[in-house]
């Protein structure tokens, strides 16, 4: 499932910022990918929209792509369960 989220993230960043999908790995730093606070808001919105989940307001800001995927994965698993 995480792989699907990674694909979604790669597609978004490529369309939005022309970021090479190969750079978007779980270890990659969001800061190095130039994902600032506004872009992160858009990303969370995109995940919520596409996956039908709600990411809580107080969630700890992710530092890496892997952190972000883990947040989404946790929510999705919870919903599916």
């Amino acid at each position: 499932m995480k792989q699907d989220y990674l694909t979604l993230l790669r597609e978004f960043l490529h369309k939005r910022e022309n970021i090479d999908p190969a750079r978007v790995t779980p270890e990659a730093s969001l800061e190095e990918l130039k994902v600032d606070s506004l872009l992160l808001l858009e990303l969370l919105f995109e995940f919520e929209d596409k996956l039908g989940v709600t990411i809580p307001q107080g969630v700890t800001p992710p530092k890496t792509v892997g952190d972000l995927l883990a947040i989404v994965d946790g929510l999705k698993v919870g919903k599916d369960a």
Partner: protein
Amino acid sequence: MASARRVAVTGLGLVNPFGGDLADFFGRMLRGESAIRLFTREDKTTRPLAVPAVRCASFDAEAALGRSLPFTMDRYSQLGATAALSAWSDAGLPRTKDAPRNDWGVSWGTALGGTLTFESGYMDLLRNGRDRVPPLSVVLGMSNAAASHISIQLGLGASSTTYTVACASSAIAIGEVLSKLRSGEATLMVVGGSEAPLSYGIVRAWEAMRVLAGGDETSAARACRPFNSDRQGLVLGEGAGAMVLEDWDHAVRRGARIYAEFAGYGNTSDHDHLVRPSVEGQIRAMRMAILDGGLTPDEIDYINAHGTATREGDPIEIAAIRGVFGSRSEAVAVSATKSMHGHMLGATGVIEAIITVMSLASQEAPPTAHLDAVDRDCTGVRHITGGPLRGSLRAALSNSFAFGGSNSVLAFRAAH
């Protein structure tokens, strides 16, 4: 003159409905070409819309600003940032994003700000049954977004201000920096305005005021006829314009081309009525601009009129011009270029200021298009009709009069 420090116009840029550059746009103005077309809009849940309007249909935000930036901008900011970058380049200035200047700034005007963003959000919430809007809605829609983007892109640290004064927004944005530049508080300012008003709700609101000109595919181009006996109202338009204003000596030192001198500014309030303009308020604004510029009425050879083509507004402006110029008013050339580029609300002041500056620089002023039967209530000035006026133009005014009774007049002097 309030100060010995003079202000030069050294850069001009715009996004206009013809899709070409400044020279192309001004050439079309001189030839009396109208950009007004029938604007139609239709979807499943709103009633079809069909009104004469002006759109920058060929504007390509990604081509102008790159892939990422347009996502963070409402259309009014996209138009504005593009115009500002164009004026910057025209002024021969390097991009200073990485070497910001704290004595350079931006002053912007918009009447409606990000109205397209807000309408889209309301549609989602109220029509489409969604319970949330995109996360950038606030920063796309805010009225100072265009100025913010311009400040960020060009590294302008002196100030970033936005004026929202209906149809005088960008004229006031220009005028209000004059004292800053004269005093030395700022050395260089990017000024102008942008508007993208063609949302469903905004067009319907203007229709409800009964001031929009009607027309169909065939007649739309001639829909706006300022000062003409059969005029029927204004035409909404989208667009953006920007000017680089700088301390005269600074401009000379860096070898900049100087289009004209920004000489004076007048700003008054009618304090009378929300929409009915006042002859007296407009007279005071024109006199203030002339006096502030160290000019006399005898030196004003051209006026780019506010001239929206409403039944009520046009005769009042002509009466005000006659009040200022007295027996000389028949020698003062007047044209209303909204007949061609429409009424761009908050952006219209700067578009007309650019036309005024270009008129002084080229010594050619554009006509009022479609003016073939001057209304008897609009006589007494030298209307430019049929083609451009060529001759000695020493100084000129650009008038902007807003709903709410705010009057702004900009005075420019030929550079040579």
